[in-house]
C-alpha cells in the first residue's frame, strides 16, 4: 500500500462542491494513520505542499463543473503550470503542483480525482447524481491507494 495523503477540498455548504469532503471522510473511516492521512479543507493552501515529501502519493479530490453529473475523472499530474496571475488568497491546483516542485527534489505521485457536480447552490448535501456515484468513486480511490 502506498503511503498516501488525501486532500478533499471544496465548500461543503455549496452542495456538490462538498464531494471532496465526503469522499475524504469515507476514506478516513476505512484507512488508518500513518499509511493514509486524510485532510478536509475549504481550499488549497500553500503549506499543504510542505508535507508532500512525507508521502508516496497525494490524492486531490475535488468537484468538477464540466461533464455529466456524477462523472469521475482521474488524472495523474506530471508537471505544474506556473501561474501568470498575481497571487491572491486562492491557491489553485496548478500552483500547488508548481509549489511542490520547488520545495521537494522528488515530488510524490500527484493525482487529481474529480467528480462532476450538478448543484452548487447554497446548502449542505450532495445531489442525487453525485450520491449515486459515491460507491464507484470509493472503489476507484481504494484502487489508487492499494
Amino acid at each position: 500500500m502506498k503511503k498516501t495523503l488525501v486532500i478533499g477540498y471544496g465548500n461543503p455548504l455549496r452542495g456538490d462542491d462538498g464531494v471532496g469532503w465526503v469522499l475524504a471522510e469515507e476514506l478516513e473511516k476505512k484507512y488508518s494513520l500513518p499509511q493514509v492521512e486524510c485532510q478536509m479543507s475549504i481550499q488549497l493552501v500553500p503549506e499543504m505542499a510542505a508535507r508532500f515529501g512525507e508521502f508516496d502519493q497525494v490524492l486531490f479530490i475535488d468537484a468538477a463543473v464540466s461533464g455529466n453529473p456524477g462523472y469521475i475523472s482521474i488524472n495523474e499530474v506530471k508537471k505544474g503550470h506556473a501561474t501568470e496571475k498575481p497571487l491572491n488568497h486562492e491557491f489553485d491546483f496548478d500552483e500547488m503542483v508548481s509549489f511542490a516542485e520547488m520545495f521537494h527534489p522528488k515530488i510524490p505521485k500527484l493525482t487529481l480525482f474529480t467528480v462532476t457536480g450538478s448543484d452548487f447552490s447554497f446548502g449542505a448535501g450532495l445531489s442525487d447524481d453525485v450520491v449515486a456515484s459515491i460507491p464507484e468513486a470509493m472503489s476507484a480511490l481504494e484502487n489508487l491507494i492499494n
Partner: protein
Amino acid sequence: MPKTITIDPVTRIEGHAKITIYVDDNGTISDAQFHVTQLRGFEKLSEGRPFTEMPSLMARICGICPVSHLMASAKACDNLMAVKVPVTGHNLRKVMNMAQIIQSHALSFFHLSSPDLLLGMDADPAIRNILGVAAKRPELAKDGIRLRQIGQQMIELLGGKRIHPSWVVPGGVNAALTAEHRAAMLKEMPEIKEIVRRALNWYHPVVKHYQEEIAVFANFPTLFMGLVNKNGEVEYYDGTLRFMDSAGNIVSDGIDPSEYDTWIGEKVESYSYLKSVFYKPMGYPGGIYRVGPLARLNIASKCGTPLADEELAGFRSIQKGPVSSSFHYHYARLIEILNCAERVEDILKDDECMNPHVRAIANPNCFDGVGVSEAPRGTLIHHYRIDENGLIKWANLIIATGHNNLAMNRGVLQVARHYLDGLNPKEGMLNRIEAVIRTFDPCLSCSTHAAGQMPMQIDIQAPNGEILKTITR
C-alpha cells in the same frame, strides 16, 4: 477633460476592492477613494439568534481570521453571562489568539508583501507573487509557509480544526489542554523565533531600498489606538484601550472596552460599504486613527518579552515619537510574531495551563455585552444586546479594517499624488497604490458587515462640481 483611473480589482488583499483616482484638467490628482464593494450583513442576520450561537456564527465572517471573531464574540458573551472565565480558559484563549496572529502575519508578510519587497515594486506582476519569491529566494518562501503551518497547527491542536474551530465558547473553552498538545506547541516556539530572526536579517537591508516608498506610504500624522495591559505593554486579548497622538502624547487611556462608543464613532460614506471609524473627541474626519501592529507598538511602553523588546528598540529608532509611515507595518508584524511566540511559550511552560477547569457556565445575566480583543489587523469590537430569552436584538461589530479606513484612503491619495502622472500611469506606480493598501493588510470580508441597500456608484466629476458621467451597479 478630467479622467478617472480605476484599479479593479486590488490584488493580494482579503476580499475585493476598487480604487478610483480623480484627475483634473491639469493632470493633477484631486482625490482618491478606496471603495469596498462587498456587503455581508452579519450584524443584521444575527438578530433573533440565541447569543450562545454567536461565536460560531461570527467566526463565519472570515475564513482567514475566524479565531479573532471567536475571541471578541466569546468575550461579549462572557459579559452577557456576567461570568469570570477561569484563568486557564482565559490563558488558552490567549494562546489561540496569538497563534492566529502568527499565522495571519506570516500570510501578510511572506505571501502577500514579500513579493513587492524581494522582487521590487516595478517587477512584472506575473512573477511578483509567492511563486516568484520561491523561485528567487526559496528559503524565504519556505519560512513563510512553515510559519503559517505552525500557527495553523496550533489552532488545530487547540480547537480541533484550523478553520472555524468551535472550541472557544461563552464562559471559556470547551476542552482542557492535553499534555501531548502542550508539548507539540512548545516544541515549535524556537523555530518560530528562528524564522523571524532570519526574516529580520533579510528585511533590514532590503528596506533601505524603499526610502521613497517609506516617505509616502500613508506617512502622515494620525492618532493610534489599541489595547494595552495594566503595565502599558502590548496586549492582544485583554486590557484597556489607549489613544496616542502623532507626537506621542497619550490623549485617552484606561478606557474600559465596554465604553468604546463614548470614544469611537462610525460614519458611512457613500462611496464604500466599509464604514469610516473615528475618534469622537476630534470629530470626523479629524479623528483619524490607525490600529494594528504599527499602532500597537507605537502606543505601548514595551512588548513585555525579551526578544521582541530588543527588536522594538530598533523599531523605536526609526523616528522620534510614534512611527508614522504605514510601510513599517511590515516590520511591526515581524516583531509581533516574535512577541507572540515568547508569550505562548511563557503560558505553556506554566503548569497552570493544564488545569482542567477551563469554562464557567451561566445563563444570561446582562442584556448588553461588549467583547474587545486584538485581531492581527487591529482592535476588534463585538457588541451585542439580547432580550430576556437570550436572543440577539442588536449587534454592532467594529472591525480593524474599519478603524483604518480613513488612513487607507489618505494613504492612497498620498501615494497617488507622489507617483502618478495622471495621464500616463505605469504598472509599477499603480502597484505602489495597491501596496500602500497592503501595508494595512485589510480584511474586507471582515469589515463589510453593514446592512442595507447602497448601490455602488462611480462619479466622474469636473473641477466645477459638474457630474460628467455616473456609473452605477
